[in-house]
């Protein structure tokens, strides 16, 4: 084995790939979240469809997309290799195991959280990415593919909303540990800056997961005729009107 292969198949080398791809995927989350904020514009999806068209056709974005595929690919592959290694390091477990007394739940369950995110990712890619790239969505008034309509239709289904919100909760917990852990693995640890990195990571985890989770919740609760909240509010109003009459 040459030095390069040796480095990146060692336990620390694999962790370095995990942290580099993980932090790269964090930058993707920011771009994705900021772009998707177009959904909240009250313009019947015109701005969102313009944005989607740009993301689907710009050659630079399309090139970076391959980087994203590699980022996800390596992050998942290395997590599998490391999990196998870690599992084989202790084949006989303890009778009593009180890890909760010395560590955080999220840090011990990154694999479970990541697996939930992966299931979500596959459903999410099929529903939006696959349809946008290979399907034939209806055109909107600007003759852009009306992906906004796909979003709205999807988020009017309860099971979809539940899957999305659960996945975003998992993402939040995954980032809660993952963000600072990435810096630690790269050796970017300094007693002056570690509190900042830690707190930034916590805020990042909460904001990103809450931001994404707000989208399905918004469409389900506020733009849906059958939506629980709309229905609830109108019923309450009816009751109040009746009571006052």
């Amino acid at each position, binding site marked *: 084995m040459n*030095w390069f292969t040796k480095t990146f198949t060692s*336990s620390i080398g694999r962790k370095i790939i995990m942290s580099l791809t993980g932090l790269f995927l964090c930058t993707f989350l920011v771009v994705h979240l900021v772009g998707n904020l177009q959904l909240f514009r009250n313009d019947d999806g015109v701005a969102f469809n313009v944005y989607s068209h740009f993301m689907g056709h710009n050659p630079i974005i399309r090139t970076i997309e391959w980087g994203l595929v590699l980022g996800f690919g390596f992050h998942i592959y290395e997590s599998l290799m490391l999990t196998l*290694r870690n599992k084989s390091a202790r084949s006989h477990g303890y009778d*009593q195991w*009180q890890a909760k007394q010395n560590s955080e739940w999220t840090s011990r369950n990154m694999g479970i959280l990541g697996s939930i995110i992966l299931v979500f990712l596959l459903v999410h890619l099929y529903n939006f990415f696959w349809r946008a790239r290979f399907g034939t969505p209806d055109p909107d008034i600007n003759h852009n593919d009306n992906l906004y309509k796909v979003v709205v239709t999807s988020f009017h289904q309860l099971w979809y909303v539940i899957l999305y919100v659960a996945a975003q909760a998992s993402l939040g917990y995954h980032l809660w540990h993952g963000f600072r*852990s990435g810096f*630690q693995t790269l050796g970017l640890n300094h007693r002056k800056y570690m509190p900042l990195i830690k707190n930034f990571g916590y805020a990042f985890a909460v904001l990103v997961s809450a931001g994404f989770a707000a989208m399905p919740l918004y469409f389900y609760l506020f733009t849906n005729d059958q939506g629980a909240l709309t229905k609830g509010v109108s019923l309450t109003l009816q009751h109040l009107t009746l009571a006052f009459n």
Partner: protein
Amino acid sequence: MAGSAATTNTKPMNLKLRVWRQPNRQTEGQIVEYPIKDISPDMSCLEMLDVLNEDLLHQGQDPVAFDHDCREGICGSCDLFINGRSHGPEKGTTTCQLHMRKFSDGDTITVEPWRANAFPINKDLSVDRSAFDRIIQAGGYVSVNTGGAPDGNEIPIPKDIADRAFEAATCIACGACVAACKNASAMLFVSAKVSQLALLPQGQVEAKTRVENMVAQMDIEGFGACSNIGSCAAECPVGISLENIAILNREYLVAKATSNTLA
């Protein structure tokens, strides 16, 4: 279960011990229960096991094998996993310094050996930690002839660097980090040894080959990788910090990128 650290008992206690018994490396073991009476709260956990062994010998049974040496919290031999924690429930102690006053009358105490494939069980609670020795042999030393003791301050080392190197050097290689880690990773141990030497001028000469060889040996021994969980540092009897693992990662990355080793 163990009482809180504030509990201070003065009366002799009756306890139920659950101890891992395993005749040798090849045979599968099991947890065996032993009731034990009149344990003084002033005894250490190891002395409590001595009492158990005396009872077992009187009954003509095989005593429980466990590792111990100095019984002063210095040597790192007493490797017992007590009630689901390395060295038991108290923070910053070895098993020999864990006193029975931390438990309450009627408690059930489960005692297991360190669990890691790199630490095979010799017998009962005694494990073979020679994997650590082989990691040290791979590079955890400075290979220059130092001659007699040098004059003080002949090699200038800033106080804070000396302090940090000393903190890393307090690692007693007990293996509590490996035992507590979900991945049975030895990163805290290796990082303490690597940082201790990498921080000092005498160690910097061989810093690159040292970290490369020690990490390679760590992987060969079959320890897991680090997930930055922090159980290791929380259970370390001498308080080695996770910062050392960041130093190890940095040293490793820089060494791999710049050393002259091509293989």
